[in-house]
Structures are given as C-alpha cells and as structure tokens.
C-alpha cells in the first residue's frame, strides 16, 4: 500500500500542518512516511502545498507527480492539480471555496464545504482539519485513538489545549457524508 497525498491551498489555511498530522498518522500506524513542502517565496495568501507519502515500504522519491489523493482548498490549486491525480484516485474539494466540479470521471470526487462548516463550528481556522477528517474517512485506514495520538505529536506542547478542538473538527469531516 502506498498513498501519495497532495495537500494544496492558500498559505495560512494550515495546508502544511494538515500534511504533518497525516504524516504522524502514518507514523503511529507503523508506516513509512515522508513530508515535503513547496518552499520558495511563499507568503500568506499565496499558494502552498505539501507532498505526503505513506507506504508499507521505504519511501523512494519524496516528490509526487501523480497523487493518489488530492486535498484541495483553493481554485488555483484545483486548476493546477486536478489533471495530475492518478486514475481511480480521490479528489477532496473544499466546496465552500471552489464552486467548480471536476471534469474527470475516472476519479472519486468528494465535495465538502469545510470552510463553511468550520465557520459554523466557530473554529474558522480548522477547515484544514475538517478536510483531513474527510480524507481519513475516504482512506478508512485509522482509528480515532491513532488520530488523537498523531495530533498530540503534531501540536507543540505550548498549544496542547488545541488538541480537543482539532479532534472535533477532524470528526466533523470524518462524519460528513459528501455523497448526498
């Protein structure tokens, strides 16, 4: 099993953190992982993305050219990466920020209004965790205990109080039925 997961969106949405939690999820599940950010003259509001590979085997190239899973939180990233997704892969789309539907019929598209949900929950900064929750439900690979452990490892000790609310956001995404 190898999942090549591309997280993409605006700087400031917590794209890199989202990838980090996913990497720790792989780690606590006993898998090999790598996390590679786009780096460059990035800034808040610019595009940001990171490549996360989770595999039974040692990770070769850390760069993802054709993701098995694309988590996308803004239109420029959707336009840029939609066509790179492997056939049979997943695209998880924040439908509150991207009104377009995918034109691909060889991938599984999951539309979730993560940003709107986060606003309604009073945690506007945690749309990323809602997206992650959706990804976890799509991959159907881990338990809630493992998610909590991954969060505990990802969140610095000084921000420990944020673990519970992150977990709630992940759960909301996990429970959201995007097929309706």
């Amino acid at each position: 099993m190898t999942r090549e997961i591309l997280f993409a969106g605006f700087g400031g949405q917590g794209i890199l953190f989202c990838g980090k939690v996913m990497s720790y999820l792989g780690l606590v599940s006993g898998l090999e992982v790598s996390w590679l950010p786009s780096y460059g003259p990035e800034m808040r509001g610019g595009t940001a993305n990171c490549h996360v590979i989770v595999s039974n085997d040692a990770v070769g190239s850390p760069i993802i050219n054709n993701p098995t899973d694309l988590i996308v939180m803004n239109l420029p990233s959707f336009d840029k990466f939609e066509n790179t997704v492997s056939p049979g892969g997943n695209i998880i789309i924040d439908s509150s920020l991207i009104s377009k539907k995918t034109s691909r019929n060889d991938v599984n598209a999951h539309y979730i209004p993560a940003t709107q949900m986060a606003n309604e929950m009073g945690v506007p900064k945690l749309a990323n965790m809602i997206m992650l929750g959706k990804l976890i439900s799509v991959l159907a690979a881990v338990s809630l205990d493992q998610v909590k452990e991954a969060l505990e490892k990802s969140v610095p000790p000084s921000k420990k109080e944020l673990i519970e609310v992150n977990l709630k956001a992940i759960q909301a995404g996990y429970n959201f039925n995007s097929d309706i």
Partner: protein
Amino acid sequence: MDKVLMKGNEAIAEAAIRANCRHFFGYPITPQTEISAYMAKRMSKVGGTFLQAESEVAAINMVYGAAGAGVRVMTSSSSPGISLKMEGLSYIAGADLPCVIVNIVRAGPGLGGIQPAQSDYFQAVKGGGHGDYRMIVIAPSSIQETVDCTIDAFDLADKYRMPVMLMGDGMLGQMMEPVSFPEVKTDHLPKKDWATTGTKMKRKANIINSLYIHPEELEEVILKREEKYNTIYETEVKYHTEGLENADVVLVAYGTTARIAKAAIALAKQNGIKAGLIRPITLWPFPTDIIAKTAPNVKCMISVEMSTGQMVEDIRLAVNGVCPVHFYGRTGGAVPTPTAIFEQIRRYA
C-alpha cells in the same frame, strides 16, 4: 526512543547538539535557515553559543577561532554563502582544524535560485578554496541518514583534524521524515592537546597557523597532510548499493537524486530491465573501487545528478574506459522525475 518527524535542517541541528557541538556561527540563507533558527532556540538551553554573524565570511572565521580552541563547532549555509566561506575553509584546512560545514545546496551559479541542486559537487570535492587540501564530504539521502552522518562528521573531523562538509540539497533540508537519535560517544577520539586554550605557564604555547614562508617546510607539511588524505581514501569510503548482481545498467546517484533513481529502477524492473544503483555516501573520498569493480559486468553506467554533469567525471575516472558512462541531469532547481530517469535506463539497456 520514539521516532519524531523532523525537517532535514532541524535534524542536522539537533544531531549536532547531541554530538556535543556547543558553538554555532551562521548567517541565514534559504533553504537552510531552519538550522540557524533551531540553533538559536536550543543552544542557550544547553549552555552553548549561537551567534548570527554579520556575514558568512565572519561566521567561518569564528568557526576557525573556535576550532582552534578545541571545541566542536559548526556553521551552515547554502551555495552562495558557501562560496563566501571558501577562503576561511582553506585556512582551516591549512591549519589542520576540525569543524563541520553544512551546505544545503541550491541552484547556482551566482545567486541562482532557491530550489534544490547538486551543482556544488566540484566546489565541495575538488577544492573550492585555494591550495592542496581535501575535505571529507558526506551526502546523506534520508533524514535518518542525515542525523547519523552529522554525528559521523564531527567524529571524522576530530579524528583527522580537518574540515568535514555535510552536503544535502534543498529538498533534503526541507522535507520531514521520522528520525530517532542514537546515543553519541566520543571517548574513542584523540585528545585535543594541540588546542590553544592557554598554557597556564605549564607548557609550551600551541600555535595554530597556516603560513610557512620556506617552501621546503611548507612542502613537508603538505605532504604529511597528503598521507592523512591517503589513509582516509583507504579507510573512510562509504556507499550503498542495490541490485548490482545481474544488472545491465547501473545508475550512480547521491542524496535526493538517489531516491528518485530508486523509483526509476523499480519502473525498469516492471518493464523487465535489470538496473542497479551505486549511491556514494562519501563524495570525497569517492567510492572509486566499487565503481571500478562493477564496470566490467555491466552494459553501461548512468550518472544521475541535479547538475549539468559533475560527479560523472569521477565515475569516468573510476571506470577508466571499461564501460560507457552516460549522464542524465536536471539543473537550475529542476528535479528529475522517475519516469525521465527510467527513459534513460531504457535507452541504454
């Protein structure tokens, strides 16, 4: 110990601290600034010294001073900054002082770009600074190996009293992988009785110097150093191989490129082509012997690099005409894809 996810840059800094490095002098530059940032945060907590110098030139000369005092010391930079350090580096080599220099390579020449590259190979292994000197150059390929190599780098520097460079590319500096930190022992290393720590009127003064006015005297010093380099070439070569048995095509690649090469080798296998990999871990001393030994058994070798072809020259010297040596590379911050490397394998298989 539990594994933690760390960026290559942070892992280098933490490994250095665990290897008892207590002095760091640096100057920020993408894509290695996290090393400085980590040191700034941690050094004061372990009783060490972190100093952001006014320039790279100043930083390397602070390293020169600290190394002369016999403490474990490190500096880090990326390509343009490493060029600035070259004068100091030559002085350090000429004064036989141990230190660790990290180069998280970005594209050049000039200011170049900030994306990953391997185009500082010549500078690292062929000199860079002036004079007859060598530097051990270690090129890890994963974050765990980066940790292990950082610790080795300090040991090798102390063992041979010389500068050691840890060379990664921007991607290795920026990416995260799980790491654990081994226990570090230093009691097997020679005492630094040459350090300029003050005589307390009890011994003759130690002098650290790289200036010898009389040619005969300087020649003797250089030739003695050359003997040390020969010993290193005989004993400290490190590399990793995969699938050399029955391989028709052997890729030679280091660092991040070696990981991508592995993915290309897997593609070749799916297509019924036998390809293998030689991955130099020490770029100097270069793994000449394994390359020479492999050459008669293969159709060809391909050097894969993020440059326009630098290591390929050392491979050709090692192969000495026994088999063709081809080159494939991307440069300027572009990174080869597994498919593109596979196409090269198919072309020459």
